[in-house]
């Protein structure tokens, strides 16, 4: 692109070379104006991602539902559930033969009367495919090949399968274990009313601003949630077949990054001029108060650092301070006691539950730090936090039975805090969170 020209003026070279790599520090606050704009433009992307996540969850749920439905329908249909071998000697054929309705029965040892079958197990000759098909042809009326007009067929399909297995094992006896098994399942349902579940989830927190003003915009645009986590143990009691109530104890840790606040060390060396007064910073959760007297805080892009010194008291440009970081990290820990109702929508091998309820959260830890060379550097605490918070939660629970007693749980959950983390005049910011809890439950 450069025009190589002998006539190129000396003055051009003077300016080109003289201004090459020249740097001038931009005015303070430029980044503060840029950041909210690019953040705002990223919000549709975040919304799209959330929509995509919801779509994926719904798709998985739908597929799982279809799968569980197919599984259950195949279990109800003996023609699909039992092996080909067992199908070839249907009990219905035996019953029909006893009534003298099947002409083929004379040629089929397997279709002689029950007494003979019980005493002579070794002489079994299974019917050919054609014979089997024709036997069905002669018994129209049902899809499954059972005689429609037979009064003898009063045994559930499941029991027939059990009887066939007994027949092949040589232990055939006209028992009703199958029927008893159904009773047993019902009894088991009654017995396993309690369950204990251990679950954990990464959680992402967002904030809903209830009043938009310059201060709240400035604060919210400079703060960013960090991935938090929650986990604990809960007990559930089955009130009815579909409804259960759940409660327990959870521990949750929430992180929040306050950007654009420069922190410097070495401030305690100037105590003789500034006194021992420490800093106060406005955040959406409350006011950060520094407890570390050696730290000096400066807001890059606004007025969130409430504490200021006039230059005659303390001039940071002349002081020998060491830069630490440009973000502060708030950490809050809560003990949660959820009271949750679960309604079973689908009761198959993969269960689906609707979950909703309230959580009572007790603040147990509150700290603020920054990071220097990968290590934590204590700053202080956030004041004005609500010690007791109530959140409402709703979600969807997917439960996959591993065995009679154990099952895997997956619960995408949305949670909205009814009261804000902290109280700052002019600010009403309500957090909400998304999490996908996963864990193991045991029925007893």
């Amino acid at each position, binding site marked *: *692109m*450069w*025009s190589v020209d*002998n*006539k190129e*003026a*000396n*003055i*051009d070279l*003077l*300016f*080109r070379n*003289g*201004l090459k*790599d*020249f*740097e*001038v*520090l*931009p*005015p303070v606050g*430029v*980044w503060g*104006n*840029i*950041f909210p*704009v*690019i*953040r705002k*433009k*990223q919000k549709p*992307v*975040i919304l799209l991602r959330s929509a995509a996540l919801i779509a994926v969850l719904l798709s998985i749920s739908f597929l799982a539902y279809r799968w569980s439905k197919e599984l259950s329908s195949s279990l109800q249909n003996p023609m699909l559930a039992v092996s080909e071998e067992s199908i070839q000697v249907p009990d219905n054929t035996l019953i029909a033969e006893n009534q003298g309705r099947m002409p083929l029965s004379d040629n089929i040892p397997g279709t002689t009367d029950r007494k003979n079958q019980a005493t002579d197990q070794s002489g079994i000759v299974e019917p050919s495919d054609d014979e089997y098909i024709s036997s069905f042809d002669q018994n129209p009326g049902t899809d499954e090949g059972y005689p429609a007009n037979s009064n003898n067929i009063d045994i559930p399909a499941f029991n027939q399968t059990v009887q066939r297995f007994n027949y092949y094992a040589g232990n055939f006896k006209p028992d009703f274990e199958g029927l008893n098994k159904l009773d047993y399942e019902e009894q088991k349902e009654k017995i396993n009313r309690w369950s204990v579940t251990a679950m954990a989830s990464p959680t992402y927190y967002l904030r809903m601003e209830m009043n938009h003003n310059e201060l709240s915009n400035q604060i919210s645009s400079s703060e*960013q949630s960090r991935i938090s986590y929650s986990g604990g143990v809960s007990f559930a009691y089955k009130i009815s077949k579909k409804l259960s109530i759940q409660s327990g104890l959870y521990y949750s840790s929430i992180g929040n*990054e306050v*950007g*654009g606040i420069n922190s410097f060390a070495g401030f305690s060396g100037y105590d003789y001029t500034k006194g021992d007064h420490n800093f106060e910073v406005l955040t959406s959760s409350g006011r950060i108060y520094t407890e570390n007297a050696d730290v000096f805080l400066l807001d890059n892009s606004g007025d969130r650092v409430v504490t200021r010194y006039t230059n005659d008291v303390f001039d940071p440009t002349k002081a020998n301070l060491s830069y630490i970081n*440009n*973000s502060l990290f708030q950490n809050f820990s809560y003990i949660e006691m959820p009271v949750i109702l679960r309604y079973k929508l689908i009761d198959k091998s993969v269960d689906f539950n609707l979950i909703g309820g309230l959580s009572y959260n007790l603040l147990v830890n509150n700290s603020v730090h920054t990071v220097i060379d990968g290590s934590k550097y204590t700053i202080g605490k956030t004041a004005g936090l609500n010690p007791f918070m109530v959140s409402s939660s709703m979600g969807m629970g997917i439960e996959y039975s591993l065995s009679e007693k154990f099952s895997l749980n997956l619960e995408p959950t949305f949670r909205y805090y009814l009261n804000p983390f902290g109280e700052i005049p002019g600010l009403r910011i309500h957090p909400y969170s998304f999490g996908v809890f996963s864990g193991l439950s045991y029925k007893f």
Partner: protein
Amino acid sequence: MPDIRNIIKGCLAGNRRDQELLYRRHAAKLYAVCLQYSGNDDEARDILQEGYIKIFENLITYKNEGSFEGWMRRIIVNTALEKYRSKHNLYRVDDIDLIQEPDAAPETEDYAGLEAVDLLDIIRELPPKYRMVFNLFAIEGYSHKEISQMIKISEGTSKSNLSRARIILQKKVKLYTGLKKDVVSG
């Protein structure tokens, strides 16, 4: 120090810290470019803000080919051009006055003692139309044909504006050099 490719990745993922890092790493150099293209600090600040917003918006189009700093500089220059076009979209009579560009080789002067900040001050004192052409031709290296398309003027006007800019600059440089020498000797 994090690699620029990692910073870009972080910015694209919406990482606020990487976005701020990208800004802080290049802001001083790009602000100097903004000052070079503007007559006052407010305008330079606007160019920097708007330019950076475009940088973040178009970051996905950067293919890791060529200098990233050069890519950012082009965006800043284009932003300055847009600002210029929005303010100077009307032709003036004197824009089409052509003056003869000096054929002779430029005089060699002793410009020792002039610092970058002096050069910046001098260039910012130029009228906007001369400053724009001089910057695009002498600093960025565009041809008169390209400049004519960029700021919607004829090639002749571009050459004429460049000549006038050079004359003014030479005078001012002499003045500054003289003043500096006076200060040193006096």
